[in-house]
């Protein structure tokens, strides 16, 4: 294992310290726990707070989306581990501006348990909360079981919409409904080419033979729908985009936002090769790309591979995507 780290157990605290030192104008630690980051101006009175969280190892997810027009705070777990309920509760108190708090995070068992427990604690303090789960990974469950799907890169669309709605002063119920609507119209699929090595264990996140790829891989290296020989970029894009279009039931005339996301070790050039074909297929199907995002948005440390996400747009969702936003790793407008 070759990594630019100090002690493995200090890894998370030290990168959080780095983010704080690099972006003091955007984020702060509201208390003395480095595992809770909030936007610099939190709490904002009269505005819904948005708390996200999850394990480390996915930058820019989750901590990179705390800022204006995005999430209000994040609770930070160890690599691939949930934050504690106490950290989530601290984040909740830090962003509560009297209008309630939305919990928005990926659908993973440990995270759900800890966020639910934090919601209990918030309720005892008279802070109302609502929960919306990112569940966009179409390979993790069939459409009939969509509520059980894992959350992956498509949650960034949900962050953007929730943040824009909260910024303009929508109520907690409105922000939750808007966010759920975006999740409902988002689909993602990933492919993995090589695993990451976990800094604490020194072990690979999954095993893959030379010349193979995992189709439908999760952002912790969870197995996907099948494993097979490595295909060309165009073949990969064809399979993935077809699965997404089918899942969202997109017809000619539909408008979409597209995200081609690198999982950590895949160069931007390869992502643009994927985007090229994605654009071609959608154009052939009469589906218009209104917004695109190409780059690293949700990674798995140095996993090699990529994911493609689609969000079906209407005027409301497009307006939310186009609203201004600024965080350490994301800017719009």
């Amino acid at each position, binding site marked *: 294992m070759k990594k630019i780290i100090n002690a493995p157990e200090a890894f998370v605290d030290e990168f959080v310290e780095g983010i704080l030192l690099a972006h003091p104008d955007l984020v702060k630690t509201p208390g003395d726990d480095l595992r809770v980051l909030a936007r610099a101006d939190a709490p904002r009175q009269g505005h819904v707070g948005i708390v996200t969280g999850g394990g480390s190892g996915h930058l820019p997810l989750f901590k990179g989306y705390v800022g204006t027009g995005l999430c209000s705070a994040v609770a930070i777990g160890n690599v691939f581990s949930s934050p504690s309920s106490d950290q989530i509760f601290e984040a909740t108190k830090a962003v509560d501006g009297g209008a309630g708090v939305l919990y928005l995070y990926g659908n993973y*068992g440990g995270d759900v*348990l800890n966020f*639910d427990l934090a919601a*209990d604690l918030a309720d005892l303090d008279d802070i109302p909360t609502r929960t919306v789960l990112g569940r966009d990974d179409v390979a993790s469950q069939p459409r009939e079981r969509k509520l059980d799907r894992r959350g992956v890169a498509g949650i960034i669309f949900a962050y953007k919409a929730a943040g824009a709605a909260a910024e303009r002063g929508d109520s907690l119920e409105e922000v939750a409904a808007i966010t759920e609507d975006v999740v409902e119209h988002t689909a993602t699929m990933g492919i993995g080419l090589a695993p990451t090595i976990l800094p604490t264990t020194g072990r690979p996140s999954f095993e893959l033979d030379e010349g193979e790829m995992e189709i439908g891989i999760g952002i912790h290296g969870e197995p996907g729908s099948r494993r097979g020989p490595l295909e060309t970029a165009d073949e990969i894009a064809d399979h993935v985009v077809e699965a997404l279009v089918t899942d969202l039931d997109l017809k000619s005339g539909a408008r979409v936002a597209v995200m081609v996301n690198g999982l950590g070790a895949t160069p931007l050039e390869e992502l643009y090769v994927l985007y090229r074909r994605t654009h071609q297929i959608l154009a052939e199907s009469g589906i218009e790309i209104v917004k695109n995002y190409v780059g690293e948005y949700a990674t798995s440390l140095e996993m090699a591979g990529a994911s493609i996400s689609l969000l079906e747009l209407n005027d409301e969702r497009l307006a939310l995507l186009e609203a201004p936003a600024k965080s350490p790793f994301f800017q719009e407008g």
Partner: protein
Amino acid sequence: MEAEQLNGRIRGSLAVLIDSADELRDLDQALGDGDLGITISAGSAAVIAALEQLPADATPVDIARASAKAFANANPSTMAALVAGALLAGSRVWADVTDVTIADAQAFAAAAATSIAQRGKTQIGDKTILDGLAAVADALVDQTDADEALDAAITAAAAAVENTKELQSRRGRASWLQERSIGMADPGATALQRFVESWKIAGVDSK
């Protein structure tokens, strides 16, 4: 049971329960990831410390909530989160309780069992702590004598653990073992049995 006595009894019981941590760790290593031992030992120690800090006028609700927070944060495992959620759910049915009766204890256990079923997405028979907790809640129904009620709870908890040996684990890491889990007692249900037994031992010790 008045709040102050409740506080002391919980601390006494958990001090006894910590002695079962190694047994629970070993059971959990066979079926799960082995962190139940540390969840119980660190969680119990944290609850004892938290309850020692409570003011003299703390109510039963305060005691349950302080216990939940301390247990959740000591070793933030799945089991810790489920148990903490269950304690908070139980505390909600105690809103105005100052002197905990057997009926209050029964309502607490029933609410706690419902919470674990919902949060853990589990049912009785899935071979989890719920099997034991639901049995204890049932055993407390219509009991009037405190000693008899406790003995009934202990008997029910032990019987529930015995029953889990016949069952296949359907939740958590243990479910990955599938039929290989049959024959082994569920660690969560066993932890509950040891807690109820500890409650009795702590009561005898205090007399």
